[in-house]
């Protein structure tokens, strides 16, 4: 009998393998978009603009990474946008209102995000509420709480200039640190997804939850973990957006969840679960920022930007379904 094994594919090889087609397509689409806008618009071609695309992707990218985990399990999290805002408010309360140091505030914001995620996970795993409904409900809860806790007023961080410096300071190549935070988070997320038991169970849940349960895995507990991870990333997003705006704005946030989900889907994460990657999601996030900023520079009104982004998302999901049908 011939040798039955093949060597484990390297990271680069994984990128090019079979079902990474969507990822390649996404990357290709991104390249085309960048080339297109750069070609027809001079203001687009500036370094400052490219940097602003990177910065614009940071927050959405982080949110999208968290949501990728959840979508791979076959669920969804509509509350990431408002949870992000909620966590930025928590950061503001701890740092500005309570005057506590930043190294307490940042973990507090992250913990708040994880807590919201845990609540989502518990509602979904234990109370058996469908993810769409559970997270939709939490969307409103965190939105309301953010406003209650902030008194419906922005919380400013002028008393903590090191906060802005930490994240928006330009340590390398004139690029604000948020961008590196995002890439760092992406690398961590990708490692967790592909190399840890959490990642393994994430895919298993999405591929066949019942078979996973019948294999003796505590699927309820792991679901709660996955949603907590998503919440954690939303918390990180809250910190980053607070840094960018040097304030926690309780009215911002709603609408971010759709961009996050869109980024994941465009990057090849399937809404039916079992497939997805952080690399793809990050590419998807860049596509959205490039599109938004490019259209803006071309003078396209905001309303039309929304329409075009929406069409792109529908197109990406449709492509995903076609691809799935062809394979089945």
């Amino acid at each position, binding site marked *: 009998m011939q040798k039955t094994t093949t060597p484990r594919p390297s990271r680069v090889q994984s990128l090019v393998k079979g079902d990474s087609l969507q990822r390649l397509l996404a990357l290709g689409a991104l390249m085309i978009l960048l080339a297109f806008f750069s070609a027809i618009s001079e203001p687009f071609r500036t370094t400052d603009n490219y940097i602003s695309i990177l910065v614009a992707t940071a927050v959405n990218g982080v949110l999208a990474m968290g949501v990728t985990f959840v979508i791979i399990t076959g669920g969804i999290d509509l509350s990431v946008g408002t949870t992000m805002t909620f966590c930025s408010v928590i950061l503001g309360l701890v740092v500005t209102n309570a005057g506590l140091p930043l190294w307490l505030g940042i973990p507090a914001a992250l913990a708040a995000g994880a807590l919201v995620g845990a609540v989502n996970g518990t509602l979904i795993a234990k109370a058996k509420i469908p993810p769409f409904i559970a997270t939709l409900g939490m969307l409103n809860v965190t939105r309301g709480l953010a406003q209650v806790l902030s008194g419906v007023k922005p919380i400013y961080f002028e008393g903590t200039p090191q906060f802005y410096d930490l994240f928006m300071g330009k340590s390398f190549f004139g690029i604000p640190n948020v961008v590196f935070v995002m890439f760092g988070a992406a690398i961590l997320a990708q490692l967790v997804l592909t*190399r840890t038991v959490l990642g393994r169970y994430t895919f*298993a849940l999405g591929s066949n939850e019942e078979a*996973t349960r019948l294999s003796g895995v505590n699927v309820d507990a792991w679901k709660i973990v996955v949603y907590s991870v998503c919440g954690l990333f939303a918390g990180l997003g809250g910190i980053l957006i607070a840094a960018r705006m040097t304030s926690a704005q309780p009215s911002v946030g709603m609408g971010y969840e759709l961009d996050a989900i869109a980024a994941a889907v465009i990057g090849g994460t399937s809404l039916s679960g079992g497939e997805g990657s952080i690399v793809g999601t990050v590419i998807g996030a860049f596509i959205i920022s490039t599109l938004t900023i490019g259209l803006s520079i071309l003078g396209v009104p905001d309303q039309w930007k929304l329409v075009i982004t929406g069409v792109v998302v529908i197109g990406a999901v449709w492509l995903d379904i076609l691809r799935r049908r062809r394979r089945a």
Partner: protein
Amino acid sequence: MGDLLVEMTGISKSFPGVHALDDCHFELRPGEVHALVGENGAGKSTLMNILAGIYHRDAGTIQVKGREVEIASPRAAQDLGISIIHQELNLMGHLTVAQNIFIGREPRGAAPFVLDEKALNKKAGELFETLHIKLDPRTRVSSLAVAQQQMVEIAKALSFNSDVLIMDEPTAALTDTEIDELFRIIRHVREGGAGVVHISHRLEELKQISDRVTVMRDGRYVDTVGTAEASIQSIISMMVGRTIFEASPELPEHPDPEVVLEVRNLNRGRVIRDVSFQLHRGEILGFSGLVGAGRTEVVRAVFGADPRDSGEILVHGKPIAIRTPADAVAHGIGYLSEDRKRYGLALIMDVEANVVLASMRRFVGRLGQIRFGRTKAAAEEHVKGLSIKTPGVSQRVRNLSGGNQQKVVIAKWLTADTEILIFDEPTRGIDVGAKSEIYRLLNDLAQQGKAIIMISSELPEILRMSHRILVMCEGRITGELSAAEATQEKIMTFATQREAVAAA
């Protein structure tokens, strides 16, 4: 003797990989209740589905009322006066009784698209009167008991003025009183000149209601006898045929007397009724019975996959709490489900991932990182040991053949170091060559000291593989046979033995 209502001759039918029917015959006279019996997989439902236009035959002829016909669809069957009532009822729970019966044929009101609800209820009421059924046509179907829902289905079938009424296991979910009521309606229908085909496993019942019995076996026609003249034993003999294979398993005569698993007084509603048994080390315990007897339900309850009302589970003599499959796995119990694609495998994932899915803890480092070297080694070891045909452990399980997929599931439980293995229909959907490999594997596992429960609906398989056989019928264990004394007929007798019908 009038003309035959239905005459089916030389009917053959194949599905991909399965020869379901081979040269079958069936006839139905007007004013007759004709029972159709056979083991699981004998072909009874397939034959009737052909008559009802649900499947299309590959060969043979069908004559209805003397005319040769093509029954291309359920609608065509309906037009010919043939109605079928399946075991799984096809009713819309949210609609009323009358709405269900006349769906698609609703009486219209003044305007063409306006419904006349009053006329609808009146029509239904009239229908019930002729059948002497007491049911309010305005009741929502979902609020009815199963027996009443069945009445609705029968009424619906009869509202098409059917001459031929096919009923598939109509009494499975009914109490004795409800069965009496059902039989009254069947007799009424018969008196009207219609013919009724009654598919059932309940042989004593058939004695009460049927005029003739046709027996099928392995997709072939065996014989047709008058119910009055035939004994239940003779019918059972025809169902199982002569046993070719009484060979005792090539296993040790007396497996270890140590009791590894004991189940006491397991109960769940009407599905599991006071089930108790023991399982010894190195033993293969066969679970036999008809589809719906409750075997899968029992093992799923033992495995923690379904809740139970009461009952104790003991492993090595110690009672343990099993509430979820995770508990069962922690105590060394593994379950290979009936439908491996739905419950046993994550199809998109590769062989390696599936093999380690039940035992991740052993392959994980302090930070939760997966030790890929180890998982790969474990997967490759089993691919070799079980002769799993795959280009590699990175191959998606979806791409493997049925037999090899089954081996991956086995590998999963071997990796999890389980000592009690429950196999639910282990060779279903697997070709002959792979089957004997699985048998060999089961023997090897038993010899290594694993304790095995094997559920199978194939009598030769159960007889060949088991040290002991437990037979279930309608949620109870009705019989226990050792390998030496077991025969197909004895198993079948226990499998059709409903409670309180021991006499006759």
